[in-house]
């Protein structure tokens, strides 16, 4: 006997407004149909009516967990169009800030993932405290804790403060200790392992066919990371290694993100040692007509949730068409296939491990 359950838009476990209509046969899921669009704000259409640098603030609000990554993606697209590229120091500065943003985003994911599994809020408050420390550091650099809008054409808006290196190193030491504790707490916990190992398996061929991206793709054994394959900024010089797992279940997706956090710490440390002297400031933001040269621009970045891509057709003062590819959109479409045949309680483990932010899905 099939029952339809509505896991409604307001729910303590779906990271935003997502409506799932789940068809159950007893306790087994037969079909999951997501209804999205609650948070659709038409960013692509809005950008057609705004000058280039006016849309940077819109792009940040697409992902409210890791805003700097999207503003970097958009400003890189405009930089490709105008030919104003960041200098060496600006590349390192951007890399350091983006990697801190990645750690902060994964920390929030870890807290909400454990929430979904039933560890009511204990892990959540601990990881949020660590994320708070990172946001304090970013506040010292950019002036705000969320929605920084600090990327400019050719650099950043404010350079790193003089004592940034020692603060950052102290914070990184603290974070390394905390990650060891989190791993020891979670990976030796038999209930956690039982709820994530073997749950929501996504095989390699399915992962490529469904078009998923980011940690979900790497957890299924596909060796692809934009930071290495379409490299940008200074990732090549810092010897970046993508983290791969092969099983493709929820535990593999968790493990990939934990390893990515540790890899980010290594990247930041080596970037802080190798950063050259100079001036990382970019052009001021009130640019009415930047010198646009290219007609069409394609830019890719590795956002914390996956691979983001912008395809932009340019006009003199504003984009003619801004086409945005967001990772959570396509990761959500894979939910239907992953969840088929799982039990109902596993649905939340799978949903949590996909790391969805609904604004990312709805643009």
């Amino acid at each position: 006997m099939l029952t339809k359950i509505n896991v409604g838009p307001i729910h303590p476990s779906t990271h935003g407004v997502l409506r799932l209509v789940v068809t159950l046969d007893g306790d087994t899921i037969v079909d999951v149909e997501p209804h999205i669009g609650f948070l659709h704000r038409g960013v692509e259409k809005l950008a057609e009516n705004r000058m280039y640098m006016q849309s940077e603030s819109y792009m940040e609000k697409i992902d409210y967990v890791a805003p700097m990554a999207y503003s970097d993606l958009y400003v890189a697209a405009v930089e490709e169009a105008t030919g104003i590229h960041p200098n060496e120091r600006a590349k390192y500065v951007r890399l350091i800030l983006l990697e801190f943003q990645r750690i902060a985003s994964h920390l929030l994911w870890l807290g909400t993932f454990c929430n979904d599994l039933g560890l009511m809020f204990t892990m959540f408050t601990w990881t949020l405290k660590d994320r708070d420390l990172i946001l304090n550091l970013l506040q010292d650099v950019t002036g705000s804790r969320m929605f920084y809008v600090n990327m400019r054409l050719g650099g950043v808006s404010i350079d790193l403060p003089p004592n940034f290196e020692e603060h950052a190193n102290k914070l990184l030491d603290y974070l390394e200790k905390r990650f060891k504790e989190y791993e020891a707490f979670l990976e030796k916990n038999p209930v956690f392992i039982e709820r994530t190992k073997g749950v929501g398996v996504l095989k390699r061929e399915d992962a490529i066919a469904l078009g998923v991206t980011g940690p979900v793709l790497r957890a299924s054994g596909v060796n692809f990371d934009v930071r290495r394959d379409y490299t940008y900024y200074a990732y090549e010089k810092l010897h970046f290694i993508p983290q791969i797992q092969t099983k493709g279940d929820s535990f593999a997706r968790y493990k990939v993100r934990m390893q990515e956090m540790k890899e980010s710490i290594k990247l930041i440390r080596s970037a802080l040692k190798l950063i050259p002297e100079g001036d990382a400031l970019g052009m001021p933001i009130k640019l009415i007509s930047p010198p646009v040269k290219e007609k069409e621009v394609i830019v890719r970045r590795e956002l914390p949730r996956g691979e983001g891509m912008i395809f932009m057709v340019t006009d003199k003062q504003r984009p003619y068409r801004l086409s945005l590819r967001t990772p959570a959109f396509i990761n959500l479409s894979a939910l239907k296939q992953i969840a088929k045949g799982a039990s109902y309680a596993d649905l939340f483990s799978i949903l949590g491990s996909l790391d969805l932010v609904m604004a990312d899905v709805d643009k």
Partner: protein
Amino acid sequence: MKINKEELIKKLKELSSSGYNYLVKITAVDYIDHLEVIYFIRNMQNKKEENVRLDLKNGESLPTVIEIYKAADYYERELSEMFGIAIEGREVKRLLLEKWDGLEAPLRKSFQWGSDYKSG
């Protein structure tokens, strides 16, 4: 590469069997008298990317590529409701917009700002 609408399925089948098996995005640009639909596909082995373009006149419909790439489901649904392109071969439901029947497709240049607002 630029192709005609009739060769779309053949060309994509050819590419997907030669290793280009990952669909990155299907997007479209509105050039007022015609639309240009672009398929971005990628080869996961040698990491090369290819974009297949075709021109679509206003009111024409697009064949579905879901048998070749399963990832095309959401992209085609979004394309069909944002640009008003009909997809032939399967039934597509709305994805992001609700109660939009009879109104102009939002991402076309002929969309009047505020035309979806019913006063009163």
